[in-house]
Structures are given as structure tokens and as C-alpha cells.
């Protein structure tokens, strides 16, 4: 039920449309104080209108920038609606960003009004307030601890809304006029994304770009107003913004906000979303959790799970894709579904999931197929903030684990001789905010240079290999692309992250970040006592376990003559988890290769110099380096 109307070219027009035609339907649900509370479309539009009046009175101009720092809350989305109502631009920021990280987006976008969730965020903003003369008002949502703040810029959401509600009856004509003034070409949002080097760039997207992509993506899966999505990822990330603001506006489905990050899984079970977006990291942790729990189960249960899952891996994806499966096998899968798959989907809160998406370029095929084999329609998509997020999506019945599917309607894809993916689409961003140089580099002749390497396979599916700058070769000429290798290694429940090196070298080496929960659980079972993460990470037993896991991956590679040389020869387990706070990961949990390789340069060199242990700074104990046995293609054939 995609609303396809030329007249509705801005989000505000969509909002009014929903409020008028289906005002009593739920727009947002939030669990607060133990109860799911509903905001209807009419309620959302009314509150947004009042808030828009108040914001206008507080000096928000058409084209002005409003920042949002907070979690997924109905009020955050109301405030976004109000901002768009006045033709202003939303600038969502990550709530776990430091004050210093917030400084440059706020300065460069000349943000005038900020919606901050709570005291913690207000404190950060007040810290940088002297350097940001453009800030006129900081609006906070939760009043806890806020009563002592006497700064003239600080005002509560409630107070602002009260002022707006008072003014609203006299301003109806103004509000209507503001909506009519909006056009699709207006800038809707600026998303600040940090690139590999950690430098933040503001991606400017218009209403029409976002709307066109969301529309195309919605029609791929026939999204309709009965769908339900859960908003649990940072709203500052374009993916969450599309799933919990843009697409609901266009399709009219309901977005649910969990009570807190810790209650997410329980809330997921209560809500039972039908449309789900999960970054690979979330999926990996779900699989790891499931395997930890099953290891703790009694013997016959474990046996049942193992045999059912083996069957699921074989039959599940084919059944889900609607391929023919010998009719005699079907009762077995049905039995497995009754005993294992359906309860498992229930525990994961995915019983009602109709469509789920993850990013193809980062997900390991094993993790991906886990979900498909138990009957969850998980698919891959590809895109970025610059390309309007929906570039390629897998279609139902055409899912291959190693591609991201066909380009979405309206998207053209071509490739440079170096295999860089170029995209032309109505969803392309307009520019990098205040950075014409970077813009000119990214968009040349109307084509976005994504910086990703890839190709179209024989069926016209896009296959994304890695970031172009990461693609290299070993000394002997073997093509070296770290990401697919890392994805394979990460598929092990014991390994959280892997960063592999090999460009311009003879062999491949890896830094391994272990999954503390899974390995801790394993160590408990083996009666291995340990004091903490660093201790666990330097245990011989753990090294042996990880070496085994990597060797399994190597065995797969060895059978492929082209990749046989890309087997990991040596590895080090890091003493400390990779953490967004150290800048090692992005806010979305993806590894920043540059930062990691710079930080652990000495470790990498030591691996290539053949040392068996290395000390990189005086405060930490030595890192141990270990070899992994590798197979030649001949051996692997013999073994098979």
C-alpha cells in the first residue's frame, strides 16, 4: 500500500495524509513504565504541528538545521516531523558520540536548535556551547536531574510543547501554508558519517531522494500499513532513519521503540515485528547466544538441535526460496519446524518476521544462512548514505548467500576498470555539506563513486567484494580482499572480529578479537579458570581453539586453487575488545581498518618478522603469535 501521489513530495505532506485518512491507526509505539503506549497518526500530526508552532516562535527558519541527540523515542520522531514541517533540516547525531565529536557537525551545519534526550546529552552540548554560537535552544526530553539548569538556551520538551499548544489555534493557516511551501527538492536531512579515517562528512539528502528510494524498496517487499518495525539502532544512522521515519511515512506502518537497549530482546518478543533490519553484528551475536544456550542444554536436546539444524541447512533455504524439494523430505522439515525452528524463531522474537534485511558486504554466509535455514526471510541489501541506502536488494526467491541481489528499480550500476562500483540513482545525495571538493570527487558526471569494489554476476546480481582501497594482492599475485576472509573467520561463534593483512606480503596474517561471552562459556565448561578478558585472550587453550576455527576456514579456501594462498598463516589474539570508544569500530560496530592497523602496527610487523611473541607497550603483557597449519590444494582434495 505505497502511497504514490505526485502531490505528496515531502514528509509533512505524508504526515497530514495519514492523519486525515487513517488518523486512528498506530504510528509509533513505545514501551514506557512497563506498558506499550501508542501514538496514533493523528496524535503524531497534532503534536508535531504544535511543536512546529513553538519552534517557529523560537526562531527556527526554513532551511535551518536542527540536531537530534538521543535514542529512538516518539518525541524524537515528533520533533523530526515538526522540523520538516517548517522546511528545516534534520541532523541526527549519535548519542554515544563525545562532546568533541559533536562539535564539528554542529559547527559545520550551523545548527540552531537541538533536541537532546537527557541530562547526559545536555551536559555534552553545554560543554561545547561556547564554541557553537549558532545554537539558540537545547530542548531536553527527560527532566531527571534537569531542574538546576538555569541556562537561557535550555528548555524542556514539555514546556516547548505547552507553548506550541497555546499558540496553535491561531496559527492553523500558517501551519497549512508551511506544508504547502515544502517541495521535494528541499533538503530533508544531513547524515554525518565518518569514513575510514574517522573524518566526519555531512551527507545531504533531499526529500525526494529519500522518498524515491524508500518507495522503490517498499515495493520490492510489498510493505503495507499492517507491518510493524522495531526501532533499536541509532537514529543517526541512515538505515534506522529510513526504517523508522522515512518508510513508515510512505507506507504507514507502525514503529515500535523498546524500553531501553537492555530490554531490546524482550521487547522484540513482545512486539513481534514483521519488518526487521539488523546489522551483521547483531545477527552474529544472536547466533552466538543461541549456540551458547544450546551447549548448555541436556544431551538429547543437543542431539535433536544438531540433527534438525543439519537438515535445516540443507532444506530450509530451498523451501524458503520456493525451490522444489523432494516431497518425501517435507514431512521431516515440518517435524523439525514443529520441534526446533518455530520455537527458536519464537525465542528470537522473529516468529512474525516477513522480511528482514542485513548488509551483504559484511555478513558471513554462515550466519546469514542460519537465519534462512530456520525459515526467517533474511535478505541482503547494499547501499550507503551517499547512495540513498537502497542500491541493491535481494528479491524473494532469488537469494544467493554471496551476492546482495539485483539493483533496485531506478538504480543504474556500472564499473570502472578497477572494479569500483558506480551508481546512478534518484536517491543519490546532493552534496557533502560545505565540502564541494569532496562532493566533486564522489559524484562525477552524475555517477557516484562508491569506493567499493564489486561486479555483476551472470544472473545480474551485484557482488560486493570489499572497499576498493583494501583490495590488493599477495606477492605471488594472489588476489587479496580482506573482507570476505574476515567474514568467513567471524562466522565462528568464538571470534567476534578479525582483521587480516596480506597486501604486498607473502602470506596472510590476522588480528583476532575473541567473543568473550562464547569463549568464557567454553572455558567454564573446560574448567579453565581465568581472571578477565586479557587473561583469557592469552591462554594456550584459547589459542588452540581459535587456531582450530581458523584452520576450518582455511580448509574451505584450500579447495579453491585461486584462493589457496590466502589462508591465514599466523594470528594474534588481542587483549582488549575492539571498541567504538577507542575509535576502533564505527558507531554501527564495523571495524575501522585504518585505525586498527595503525594501533597494532607493531603486532602486524612482528607477525611477518616471525617472532613468537611481542610486547608493544610496557603496560600490557606480551602478545603471543601462533601459526595455523595450512593445506595445499592437493591435500584438501585428498582429505575430501
Amino acid at each position, binding site marked *: 500500500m505505497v502511497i504514490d501521489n505526485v502531490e505528496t513530495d515531502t514528509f509533512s505532506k505524508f504526515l497530514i495524509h495519514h492523519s486525515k485518512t487513517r488518523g486512528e491507526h498506530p504510528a509509533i509505539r513505545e514501551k514506557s513504565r*512497563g506498558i506499550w503506549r501508542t501514538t496514533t497518526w493523528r496524535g503524531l500530526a497534532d503534536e508535531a504541528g504544535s511543536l512546529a508552532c513553538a519552534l517557529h516562535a523560537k526562531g527556527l527558519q526554513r532551511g535551518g538545521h536542527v540536531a537530534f541527540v538521543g535514542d529512538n523515542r516518539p518525541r524524537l520522531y515528533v520533533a523530526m516531523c515538526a522540523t520538516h514541517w517548517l522546511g528545516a533540516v534534520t541532523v541526527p547525531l549519535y548519542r554515544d558520540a563525545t562532546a568533541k565529536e559533536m562539535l564539528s557537525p554542529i559547527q559545520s551545519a550551523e545548527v540552531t536548535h537541538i533536541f537532546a534526550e537527557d541530562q547526559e546529552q545536555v551536559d555534552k552540548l553545554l560543554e561545547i556551547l561556547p564554541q557553537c554560537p549558532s545554537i539558540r535552544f537545547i530542548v531536553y526530553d527527560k527532566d531527571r536531574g534537569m531542574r*538546576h539548569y538555569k541556562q537561557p538556551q535550555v528548555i524542556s520538551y514539555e514546556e516547548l510543547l505547552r507553548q506550541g499548544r497555546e499558540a496553535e489555534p491561531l496559527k492553523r493557516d500558517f501551519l497549512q501554508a508551511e506544508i504547502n511551501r515544502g517541495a521535494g527538492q528541499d533538503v530533508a536531512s544531513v547524515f554525518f558519517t565518518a569514513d575510514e579515517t574517522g573524518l566526519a562528512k555531512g551527507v545531504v539528502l533531499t526529500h525526494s531522494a529519500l522518498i524515491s528510494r524508500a518507495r522503490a524498496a517498499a515495493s520490492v517487499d510489498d510493505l503495507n500499513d499492517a507491518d510493524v518495525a522495531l526501532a533499536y539502532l541509532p537514529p543517526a544512522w541512515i538505515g534506522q532513519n529510513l526504517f523508522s521515519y522515512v518508510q513508515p511515512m510512505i507506507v504507514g506502518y507502525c514503529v515500535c521503540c523498546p524500553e531501553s537497549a537492555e530490554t531490546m530482546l524482550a521487547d522484540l518478543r513482545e512486539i513481534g515485528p514483521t519488518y526487521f533490519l539488523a546489522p551483521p553484528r547483531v545477527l552474529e551475536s544472536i547466533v552466538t547466544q543461541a549456540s551458547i544456550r544450546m551447549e548448555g542444554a541436556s544431551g538429547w536436546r543437543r542431539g535433536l538441535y544438531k540433527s534438525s539444524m543439519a537438515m535445516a541447512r540443507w532444506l530450509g533455504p530451498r523451501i524458503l526460496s520456493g525451490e522444489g524439494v523432494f516431497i518425501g523430505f517435507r514431512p521431516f522439515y515440518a517435524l523439525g519446524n514443529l520441534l526446533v525452528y518455530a520455537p527458536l524463531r519464537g525465542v528470537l522474537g522473529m516468529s512474525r518476521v516477513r522480511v528482514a534485511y542485513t548488509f551483504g558486504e559484511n555478513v558471513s554466509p554462515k550466519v546469514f544462512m542460519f537465519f534462512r535455514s530456520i525459515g526467517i526471510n533474511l535478505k541482503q541489501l547494499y547501499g550507503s548514505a551517499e547512495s540513498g541506502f537502497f542500491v541493491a536488494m535481494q528479491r524473494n526467491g532469488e537469494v544467493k548467500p554471496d551476492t546482495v541481489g539485483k539493483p533496485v528499480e531506478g538504480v543504474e550500476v556500472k564499473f570502472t576498470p578497477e572494479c569500483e562500483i558506480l551508481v546512478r540513482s534518484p536517491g543519490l545525495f546532493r552534496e557533502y555539506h560545505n565540502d564541494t571538493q569532496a562532493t566533486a570527487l564522489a559524484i562525477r558526471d552524475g555517477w557516484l563513486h562508491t569506493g567499493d569494489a564489486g561486479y555483476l554476476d551472470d544472473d545480474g546480481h551485484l557482488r560486493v567484494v570489499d572497499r576498493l582501497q583494501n583490495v590488493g594482492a599477495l606477492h605471488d599475485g594472489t588476489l587479496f580482499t580482506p573482507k570476505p576472509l574476515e567474514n568467513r573467520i567471524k562466522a565462528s561463534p568464538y571470534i567476534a572480529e578479525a582483521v587480516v593483512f596480506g597486501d604486498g606480503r607473502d602470506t596472510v596474517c590476522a588480528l583476532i578479537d575473541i567473543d568473550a561471552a562464547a569463549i568464557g562459556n567454553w572455558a567454564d565448561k573446560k574448567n579453565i579458570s581465568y581472571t578477565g578478558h586479557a587473561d583469557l585472550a592469552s591462554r594456550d587453550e584459547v589459542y588452540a581453539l581459535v587456531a582450530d576455527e581458523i584452520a576450518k576456514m582455511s580448509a574451505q579456501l584450500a579447495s579453491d586453487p585461486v584462493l589457496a594462498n590466502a589462508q591465514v598463516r599466523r594470528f594474534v589474539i588481542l587483549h582488549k575488545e575492539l571498541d567504538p570508544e577507542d575509535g576502533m569500530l564505527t558507531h554501527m560496530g564495523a571495524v575501522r581498518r585504518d585505525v586498527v592497523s595503525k594501533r597494532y602496527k607493531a603486532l602486524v610487523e612482528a607477525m611477518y618478522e616471525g617472532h613468537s611473541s611481542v610486547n608493544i607497550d610496557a603496560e600490557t603483557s606480551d602478545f603471543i603469535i601462533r601459526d595455523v597449519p595450512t593445506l595445499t590444494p592437493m591435500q584438501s582434495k585428498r582429505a575430501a
Partner: protein
Amino acid sequence: MMDMTPLQISERGFAIGQPILELNEISLRFGGVKALTSISFDVRQHEVRAIIGPNGAGKSSMLNVINGIYRPQEGSINYQGKPLANMTPTRAARMGISRTFQNIALFKGMSVLDNLMAGRYLRTHAGFLEVALQLPRARREENENREAVEEIIEFLEIEHIRKTPVARLPYGLQKRVELGRALAAEPKILLLDEPMAGMNIEEKQDMCRFILDVNDHYGTTVVLIEHDMGVVMDISDRVVVLDYGKKIGDGTPNEVRSNQDVIDAYLGVAH
């Protein structure tokens, strides 16, 4: 995470008022053992008052006297200007004095939610049959209680363990739940018996923040016992120091810190 150093007393939600609790010449003996010897001090409305002292100084006895568990042989207690005689824990609770215990005293097999609901007992008037038959008053009260409890759950940030049995929680969280149960009774005075004992630094900081927030948000008067001097000095308005059942110091954290008797007691000078 939290900012412990500058405690801005002037900027609090509730100004410190008149004495709400006065203890005069309290002496407590167990047989021949003198637990407390003529101790006098007062607690003012909305303040955070700490009782500190080395092990065996009589801190817990003092709290038990206020709470009505022990009856002092000598001395009197005035609560809100009226003398209190024949104090019992139940009466204390009815009069708005809630407490937590040094060795957590929660219902281990019950969920966090049920423990907090139990804390609402005094705010419940419906009788056994009314509740059993789910008559209107019982249902209304149940809803009101649940709402009050949910507010506390949000306040203490324990939404994620709402339905978890208490026995399965780590120590620091159990302490927080116990604070929650005491708060559920909407007390005027909150007695905390070593709320930070056995916690790591992070848990201590969290607990400090919650105690200050309770005081700031609900205006609850807090009396707390602690032997960790550092923590106490940061969050209390005034401190009483006990040693061998005698009061050796009383005043603001700074006054107490420079009190020679206190220094001696903590550094261990021969008596």
C-alpha cells in the same frame, strides 16, 4: 558517567529544613556490653546524614534503634517533633521510615517486580478477600501500586530485570533492588545500612548517584551507614562519627575530616 566531586548543596531540589529526627542521650546495652553510650544527634529534613565509624563502633545498632528493632535503655527519640516511645519496626515503617540491610534481605525467589510490589504493602488497604476476589478497590490499588513501582523501576534503571528472580542477579543490582523496595513505601526517611559494601568502584559510583538522585528528586531524608570514608564524604551533608559506642565527631565532612579524635580512631591510636 557521573560527576561525584562538586556536590552543589545549594542547588538541590529540596532545601535542608528543621530537624525531623532527634536522638537524645541514647544508651544501649546488651547485658554488660555497652553498644551505645549516651549518643545525641539530629537529622534534618531533606539532608543526607551519614553515620560512620570503624567496625564494631555501633553503627548498625544505632540504625536498629532508630528503626525500632532495639529499644535503648536510656534516652529518647523525637520524630517530627513528637517523642517516640515503644517503637517497633512496623510502626517505624508506618511512620515513614524505610530501610535496607547490610546483608540484603530481599525475597530471593521472587521477581524484582514482586519485591518492589511487596514494598507497597503499607500503601495497600484492600483486605485478603478483596484481593482474592479481585474486587474494584483491590484492582484499583493494584494498578496504582504497579504504576508507582514502575516509576521506581525507571528511576533506578532496572527495566531489563523487571521479571528476573532476585537470586539470579549480581550483588550490585540486588542492592539497587533493595533500595527500590525501600523507596516503594514512599518513605520520609530512608535508612541505608552499608549500601556500598562489597561493591566495585563502578557499582559504588552508580549507587552514590542513585542515593543523591533519590534525595534530590523525591526529597527523601537519607541516613546512611558506611565505613568507606571516601564515599561518605562526597555525598553527605553532615556526618556523625562513632567509635566504641561513643560519638567522637559530628559535623560537615570537612569538619569531621579535620577532627583529631576521628583521625585517631581511623588510624588506630591506643585507647
